């Protein structure tokens, strides 16, 4: 479990990010995954496109958006990142705006992410969103996400 594993999901985070609007917020949420080499830079654009194409349905719960695109949009590794914003942004969701926390993920195929998202859902039900919001720095946010991954 604690041994380095090439198949283990890449985990990344950014805290206290300034984003002018939802597009900037989605880009910021993908950037840690780009920086980690887990997705190609174009993944960021595709995540913005998904909101443009399908509406802000990925604002799952008050204040929290799940940013992602498809495996074919440049995903190299299964990955998960959390980003907190200094100022919340509006996505245009009828009930769940404004958003101050974004979780981005990428999956290299149509099924690798299923276990990860299952654990993510369980941890969100157990209060992960507020743990991430309260994380004072990047290292602490990564540690919170690592509890999700360690549970796989």
């Amino acid at each position, binding site marked *: 479990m604690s041994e380095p594993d090439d198949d283990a999901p890449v985990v990344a985070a950014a805290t206290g990010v300034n984003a002018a609007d939802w597009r900037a917020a989605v880009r910021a949420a993908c950037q840690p995954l780009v920086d980690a080499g887990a997705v190609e830079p174009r993944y960021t654009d595709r995540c913005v496109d*998904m909101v443009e*194409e*399908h*509406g*802000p*349905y*990925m604002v*799952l*719960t*008050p204040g*929290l958006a*799940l940013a*992602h*695109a*498809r495996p074919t949009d440049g995903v190299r590794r299964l990955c998960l990142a959390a980003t907190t914003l200094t100022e919340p942004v509006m996505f245009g969701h*009828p*009930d*769940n705006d404004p958003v101050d926390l974004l979780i981005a*993920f990428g*999956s290299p195929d*149509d099924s690798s*992410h*299923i276990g990860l*998202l*299952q654990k*993510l*859902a369980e941890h*969100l*039900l157990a209060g992960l969103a507020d743990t991430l919001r309260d994380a004072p720095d990047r290292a602490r946010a990564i540690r919170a996400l690592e509890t999700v991954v360690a549970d796989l």
Partner: protein
Amino acid sequence: MNQNDSNRQLQVLTVCGVGMGSSLILRMNAEKALSTLGVSAKVEHTDMSSARSMRADVVIAQGMHADDLAGVAPVVLSISNFMDVDGLRRQLDEALRAQGWLGDE
């Protein structure tokens, strides 16, 4: 689903734009809610364009997608908060009772 099909599993479809993330999380929470209601159900998740050509007993999606899914199932539930398992349970309970798919204790 007819009442005389009571041994058949309820077919439930959770839907989002891409059919990978939000709908998967919604599927897990719908499974939890249905299990607390004691309903035997097969829950699948999919994307909007695939969903339009599918058929189910119940479809669950964000309100902004619900109108588009009206032909997919006799019951279309609009959910705003995908993490509110208890709210989902209440909506399912009401809708399944209205269809006669969930009897009184």
